[in-house]
């Protein structure tokens, strides 16, 4: 049945195209959004140690958390499938995880306006499955203890926004490179 075959191939190609265009747009948009929000929240020190930075007088503390579930697009999943065959670095999934982690940390920070520090940051990742097959989406949970009180004059905290992976900033490339 050649007709059926053509239909099937067209279907996959359309999905690939849609995934490529929309996935790429969503990713670069998301990265722009992440960088903008990260620079806004730079002055809230977040550390994964248990001792607060500087001499801080704490009046209150709460557990804060942020989480996000992100899915990879069809094109990248196909690319990752090829990679799984040949072995090597899976850049498609690296950016997915990077975006998810940074988004989760940002949501955590945004959930506690007025806090002066977040200590003991923990990040957990779990993959979400639908039925038996993996759908390539991940859940990231970030949590920590937010401290409220008097910010120390000198904490030695010099924050900077992290760079985004070069690939997201580059212009569109054509096709999988194997």
């Amino acid at each position, binding site marked *: 049945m050649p007709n059926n075959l053509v239909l099937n191939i067209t279907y996959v190609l359309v999905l690939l195209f849609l*995934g490529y265009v929309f996935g790429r747009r969503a990713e670069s948009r998301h990265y722009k959004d992440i960088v903008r929000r990260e620079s806004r929240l730079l002055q809230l020190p977040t550390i994964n140690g248990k001792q607060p930075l500087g001499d801080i007088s704490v009046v209150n503390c709460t557990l804060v958390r942020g989480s996000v579930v992100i*899915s990879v697009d069809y094109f990248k999943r196909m690319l990752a499938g090829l990679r799984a065959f040949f072995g090597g670095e899976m850049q498609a999934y690296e950016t997915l995880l990077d975006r998810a982690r940074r988004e989760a940390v940002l949501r955590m920070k945004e959930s506690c306006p007025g806090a002066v520090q977040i200590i003991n940051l923990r990040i957990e990742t779990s993959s979400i*499955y639908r039925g038996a097959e993996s759908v390539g989406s991940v859940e990231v949970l970030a949590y920590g203890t937010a401290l409220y009180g008097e910010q120390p004059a000198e904490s030695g905290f010099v924050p900077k926004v992290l760079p985004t992976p070069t690939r997201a900033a580059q212009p569109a490339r054509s096709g999988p490179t194997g």
Partner: protein
Amino acid sequence: MFISNIETIPGKQVIACQGVVAGSTVRAKHAGRDLMAGLKNIFGGELKGYTELLEESREQAIDRMKRQAARLGANAIVNVRFSTSSVAAGAAEIYVYGTAVTVTD
């Protein structure tokens, strides 16, 4: 109730320990959310339905843990940890646990 994921409550003193308290919940997503997730699997992006679902579950698990601590007469929970596991297809268990303590200024 004070909750933290470090061993103490900053600025307070632990005077009694009531032992480990925990809260858990198992949730499944409904079909509508699954349909949206299917679409998002083509286009990529955040699965908002799942994010909300897991957030609600976590809220409930924390609530249950707090209630347990309150029953023991504690006014704070320290060293809180989260854990997630998928127990069945399309369902996840959210588990949260910590140590119930009594603190004073």
